[in-house]
């Protein structure tokens, strides 16, 4: 019995591999735009050679624009309500320099740290960092202790306070677990941008760049090479995957 199953899987894998090669060959120019390294076959695990990251230019971020938040809510099936118990993966943060009154508006989300405190403190290992640097909550083993919420310096996490129904099939979420921005991992795994980035691009602000920080030729790396960028709470040395410009 097991033999046949494995054979089938093997067969299927081979088929997929050839399929992937053929598909890649036909659209090779498009693939090259983002670098071949990113296209990953479904059966291929996330690679440690990649580190997904984001560069946010607060000077381009529209004051009062909330498109990234709305797109995030739609993609992840969040209610969009903003009560104290409601989930928010991404929020627009308005900051004002107390010395000179200069104001900035910027999206704040999980910073996908290289050394994430949430992962360190999680008793079961539900809070985890994927090989490609995306910090996630494995809801299968999250016990809902909320210690990660205590530990996160960015207030990036929310707790699901109520039973949920009609979730997005690609974004399972439910009562009693902690959750946060996943960089839209379901989209990233098929080589798309996170929903917030696409929303920001399509409204013309282009304030958010997403890509592989390990690839010196990726747009996000190139932008970081030409202009200075900052980490939020750099003093903590968490080496965040999300960087900001213009603050």
């Amino acid at each position, binding site marked *: 019995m097991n033999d046949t199953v494995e054979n089938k899987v093997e067969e299927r894998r081979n088929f997929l591999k050839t399929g992937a090669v053929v598909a890649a060959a036909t659209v090779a120019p498009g693939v090259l735009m983002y670098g071949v390294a990113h296209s990953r076959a479904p059966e291929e695990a996330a690679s440690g050679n990649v580190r997904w990251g984001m560069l946010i230019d607060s000077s381009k971020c529209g004051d009062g624009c909330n498109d990234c938040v709305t797109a995030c809510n739609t993609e992840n099936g969040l209610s969009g309500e*903003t*009560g*104290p*118990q*409601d*989930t*928010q993966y991404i*929020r*627009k*943060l*308005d*900051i*004002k*320099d*107390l*010395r000179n009154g200069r104001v900035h508006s910027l999206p*704040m989300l999980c910073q996908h740290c290289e050394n994430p*405190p949430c*992962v*360190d*403190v*999680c*008793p*079961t*290992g*539900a809070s985890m960092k994927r090989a490609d640097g995306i910090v996630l909550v494995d809801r299968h*083993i*999250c*016990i*809902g*202790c*909320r*210690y990660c*919420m*205590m*530990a*996160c*310096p*960015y*207030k990036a*996490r*929310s*707790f*699901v*306070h*109520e*039973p949920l129904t009609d979730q997005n099939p690609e974004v399972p979420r439910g*009562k*009693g*677990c*902690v959750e946060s921005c996943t960089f839209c991992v379901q989209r990233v795994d098929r080589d798309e941008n996170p929903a917030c980035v696409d929303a920001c691009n399509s409204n013309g602000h282009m304030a958010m760049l997403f890509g592989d920080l390990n690839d010196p030729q990726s747009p996000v790396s190139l932008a970081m090479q030409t202009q200075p960028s900052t980490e*939020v*709470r750099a003093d*903590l040395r968490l080496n965040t995957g999300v960087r900001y410009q213009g*603050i």
Partner: protein
Amino acid sequence: MANENCINQQECKPTQFWALLGLGGLVVLSSLYAFFTLEHHGHVLTGMNNQIVWGLPHVFAVFLIVAASGVLNVASIGSVFGKKLYKARAPLSGMLALSMLAGGLAVLVLDLGRPDRLVVAMTYYNFKSIFAWNMIFYNGFFAIVGLYLITLMDRNLKSYSTTVGFIAFLWRIALTTATGSIFGFLVARVGYNSALMAPMFIIMSFAYGLAVFLLVQTVMYKWNNLALDERILIRMKNLLGVFIAASLYFTVVFHLTNLYFAKQWEFERFILLEGGVYTMVFWIGQIIIGGILPLLLLFSPGARHSTGMVMVAALLVILGGMSQMFVTIVGGQAYPLVLFPGYQESSTFYDGVINTYTPTIWEYMLGMGGVGIAFVLTVIAVRAFKFLPQDDFKALETDDA
């Protein structure tokens, strides 16, 4: 008549025993009701939210756990440091430690978002997490103190009690270090983030544990129409006084350190001056009720002869302990995370504002359940076994010398 009110002798009338058990049982039942309600509807019914993620249940749970490790100190002084007076109290101390830890842990578990996954918590360990280490320490505590109790109460195993007692002592120091470090290791929050948390929790556990012990001991003596020997009373009350003073000292050092660091000023201003309920609970609850008043009571001339005064002081220390946990746990979260120092922050996600917390009845029920469990276990244990301290007064004299 004398027997009528006893609860630790098999032959006495059981009315009081059942009444106490019923009372404790009701509290436990109500917390179970709260648990099932929350399990069904989710934490939406509580006052906890994405800002105040740990609320009243954690205040009760952490207090019980810290006091549980502290109450074992009475046994440790006997077994490890060889004081006869305390050795006679070792069984009661060990039993109280176990029942309070059970109560505290129960609350912690019942408040989980997924309490049904307790097995996961026991089978998946992230060893970098101090929280995971706590689970190991809690479970080990049950085993070691359980064993310790057996060696204390079984004649044949009595010779092992010193060794096991020593292990139990080391274990409880590790446990409270880990509990304090749950907060101490929180790198991002100004209210925690201090190595002082671990030793401060240990010294506070001494005070809270001894206070609980004195309270239970006094009640047990009263019910048996026995009078606690004055020498014992004086020594134990003085020890409590020392622990309270040490707790106050640590509190002062903790806040002085913060006051010296410019980046911590705003937090200190919040806790010490402008924090509303947290400021009030800090000064009135933790400092006055939990520190200064009991110190005055314990070291006033009358306390040498008055079990009543010592008992009131012990009660105040417990109240102060709950206040301290409230200020530490909830107050520490009420003060917002600072993402951009030097900037004013605002968002839809409650950035830059003092977070509000209004606990609902469910949280009280859950938290009191922990106290209820500890109480019920104690009542049963005291009834079923001889936990009343058996003092050897001759030995006490040599102890004095």
